[in-house]
């Protein structure tokens, strides 16, 4: 404790101009994400949810085809159809990853340290979006693979898995999860609270479009189609109506981008 400071002789700190601030912010975000155990638990939760959900839905299909009631015969289905249905539940683990990237900072107060290191609000959020997107794409590929591996043997002769189609669907699942993950991040930057964000996500992805479809009115159906959850579903299932799958992808990407912009505005305006 006799040391006063190590900086009397100006230690070899990398000259600041050599590193790009965005690259630094991304590196910091990466370290931040993986240096708490909750990230690993969330990944594990996603894998378990997918395995359980895909297994259960596959059992429903197989049972429907073999019981005495011909009304619920699904016939032979693509294994990835089951996986895509299972995403409906599994996505909440991925959403948690996206929203916890920032709500955790607000509850623990580390947002002040983060903004002290990276004062540009846009850069902080962009770095979080890049890391969340990259992590959820990889996690999405893993979850898609887990879903296929669980659903295929359960479906048995009632499931088909052509190599190209299956791979394409797994990639689509990964892209979908990355976009909703980033959407969750942007929304959380605006709302700040994990519970509130999860509630709004549940509403926009599921409850509101479902309620809008209930009365079966064309206008309300069109509005429901524009919601992020519906856009994502149209993208994943590859339907042709009401719009092509590519439009669904663009709509979902638009929602994610809009949420990020709103998040940046909120971070800029509010005191940390």
């Amino acid at each position, binding site marked *: *404790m006799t*040391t*006063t*400071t*190590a*900086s*009397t002789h*100006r*230690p*070899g*700190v*990398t000259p*600041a*101009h*050599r*590193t790009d*601030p965005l*690259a*630094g*912010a991304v*590196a*910091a975000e*990466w*370290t*931040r994400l993986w*240096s*708490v*155990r*909750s990230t690993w638990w969330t990944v594990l939760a996603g894998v378990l949810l997918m395995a359980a959900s895909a297994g259960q839905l596959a059992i429903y299909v197989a049972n429907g085809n073999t019981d005495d009631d011909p009304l619920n015969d699904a016939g032979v289905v693509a294994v990835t159809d089951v996986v895509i249905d299972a995403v409906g539940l599994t996505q909440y683990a991925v959403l948690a990853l996206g929203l916890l990237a920032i709500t*955790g900072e607000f509850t*623990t*107060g*580390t947002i*002040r*340290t*983060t*903004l*002290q*290191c*990276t*004062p*540009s609000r846009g850069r902080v959020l962009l770095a979080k979006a890049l890391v969340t997107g990259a992590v959820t794409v990889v996690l999405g590929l893993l979850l898609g693979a887990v879903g296929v591996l669980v659903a295929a043997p359960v479906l048995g002769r009632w499931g088909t898995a052509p190599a190209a189609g299956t791979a394409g669907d797994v990639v689509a699942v990964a892209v979908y999860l990355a976009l909703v993950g980033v959407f969750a991040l942007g929304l959380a930057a605006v709302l700040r609270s994990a519970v509130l964000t999860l509630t709004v996500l549940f509403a926009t992805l599921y409850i509101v479009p479902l309620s809008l479809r209930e009365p079966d009115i064309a206008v309300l159906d069109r509005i429901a189609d524009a919601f992020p959850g519906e856009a994502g579903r149209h993208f994943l299932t590859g339907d042709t109506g009401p719009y092509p799958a590519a439009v669904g992808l663009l709509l979902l990407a638009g929602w994610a981008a809009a949420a990020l912009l709103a998040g940046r505005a909120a971070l800029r*305006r509010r*005191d*940390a």
Partner: protein
Amino acid sequence: MITLSGLTKRFGSTVAVDDLTVDIGPGRVTGFLGPNGAGKSTTMRMILGLDRPTAGRALVGGRPYRELRHPLHEVGALLDARAVHPARSGRAHLLTMARSNGIPGRRVDEVLATVGLDARAAGKPARALSLGMGQRLGIAGALLGDPPVLMFDEPVNGLDPDGVRWVRRLARALAGEGRTVLVSSHLMSEMQLTADRLVVLGRGRLLADAPIEEVVAGAGTEVRVRVPDDADRAVLTGRLVAAGATVEPDGPDALTVTGVTAERVGDLAYERGIRLHELSAREASLEQAFMALTADSVEYAATPTGGDTR
């Protein structure tokens, strides 16, 4: 160099910082003094771009903090030592900070050694650190980028006497290297030992911005006089009050006199043949200077527009 000009922060109808204009220069320790709620932390948060000023500007090295690309190389700050994720280790916390500004990982070990946190303490989750160790971790974070400007908000909170002395020496050493060092505290005694210059805040307003000796001298001199005889003491008290002094009893046989010089007290006693055991003049302490300054700010706050400050 920290430059505040017309810096103002309102929270609703409450004025936390009120039109603060002050320069904090390099090569010395500037003590940022004020009672709790005077606006010290809010000012520091505005300097770091965490709170947006309602009016005015805060510049570091001539630029707003939010425009800095690698801020840890320009300003190091200990604001709230508990702004650490409870589950993250102190080392990972510092590593995250270092990464963001392109600082190599070995610098993390250097600052950990500087603040006296060993590998075992730095590897523990932050929630397991004592208040004192948390303060050291926060100071390590401030030193990370080897910045020319340092701000410490209440750095001695939770430190043992050894740690307090260490922080004092650290602040002095950093200023000795030509850095700008701003240390906030509500402890006058601590400031008297650490600071060269004082910026005193009361209810968000600037009360003083001067070298520490000047602030102390501004509070005036007081005279202590010991009169063993009770009757004599009463007589002397009467004469002093008549001469325009303020007299307060100080212990069983002594008086504290302000408003007249020690010579005058001695003359008055001599005229009446009063026996004295002690006659001494002493400079007011920083604490008394501070009380005198902030007493006014309390009066200011009693006007109808004043409210409770944050």
